[in-house]
């Protein structure tokens, strides 16, 4: 008999303890970040969308070898005498296949890095062409995409840049 009552009262107090937890949480401030109006800035080492600088790249193909899903392609530039130059004619990364693993940035021997991760985490594609980002001499770090329909380079609309002037690291 007493065991029955102790079990009843025991479960009653357990229910009250559960209710206490939710009641107490109600008066604590919420942790929500209201996304479209408030945006989080990722930490310094965040591996967002890749950026590329055609000037510093010495087209050594290290990043092409390091990439697990072979997203990177580049072509060595040749000066007018036809001799290979330590520059790159064009460079492209296929963001459809890239899995942001930072192996290319680590393989890059240049200082500061020619290919590095930005802080942009909002990376959408409005067209399939937009998945393949291309860089040539004179393009800015975010790069343009080659629109096969209009046969011209266009600025990617899908990538929202956290920084208008993209940050670079000295190491």
């Amino acid at each position, binding site marked *: 008999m007493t065991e029955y009552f102790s079990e009843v009262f025991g479960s009653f107090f357990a229910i009250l303890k559960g209710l206490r937890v939710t009641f107490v949480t109600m008066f604590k401030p919420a942790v929500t970040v209201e996304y479209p109006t408030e945006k989080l800035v990722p930490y310094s080492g965040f591996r967002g969308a890749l950026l590329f600088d055609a000037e510093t790249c010495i087209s050594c193909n290290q990043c*092409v*070898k*390091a*990439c*697990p*899903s*072979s*997203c990177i*392609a580049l*072509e060595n530039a040749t000066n007018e005498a036809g001799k290979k130059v330590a520059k790159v004619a*064009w460079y*492209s990364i*296929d963001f*459809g296949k890239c899995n942001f693993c930072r192996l290319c940035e680590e393989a890059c021997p240049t200082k500061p890095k020619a290919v590095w991760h930005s802080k942009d985490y909002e990376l959408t594609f409005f067209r*399939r062409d937009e*998945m*393949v980002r*291309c860089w040539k001499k004179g393009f800015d770090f975010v790069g343009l995409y*080659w629109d*096969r329909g209009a046969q011209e380079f266009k600025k990617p609309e899908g990538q929202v840049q956290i920084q208008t002037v993209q940050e670079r690291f000295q190491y």
Partner: protein
Amino acid sequence: MTKEELKAALEKAFPGLVPASQAVGDYLTLRLPDAAQLLPVVTCLKETLGFEYLDMVTATDWLGPVNLDGFIREPNFNVFLPEGATAQAEAPKKTAGVEYRDAIELVWCLSNLKGRIKVFLKLDLPRGGGKAPSLVGHYKAADWQERELFDLFGVRFDGHPNLVKILTPDFTVGHPLRKDYVHQKDRFD
């Protein structure tokens, strides 16, 4: 129970059992001369030596370096990438000192939870119609793992309740993890 005790106990019970040429890490690895030896060794291990936990059943195809046609070469959307570029690791080549042979090597890993020791059993099966006795009688865990090996390697386990493929989709032809697997174009390519 230490490795040496186990080795001695097994030597005494099964003289035909010889340590495998390529041991798995520093565990005790034994090679079974033929398929018929598997069940007696396993029953002895399970009943007398207390190996009642079947960790893993796996297989390796020792034919040679993997055939590059086995990988899906999706049409290259990246307009700048040369056609058909796959992973950048250079294609594997045959290396000396590795005994490539026309056989699929089955590997069982049994562990004795109390004695804190694992043992590996290896068995070579001919690639064509290799047949191995199924361990579902002793360990129920072998059920799905053997189905997976049948699915990916084409190894038949006689005595298995329902040897049906488990992982690959219905329309795949052939067994993907074999080294000479060539990928037929299916409706998704």
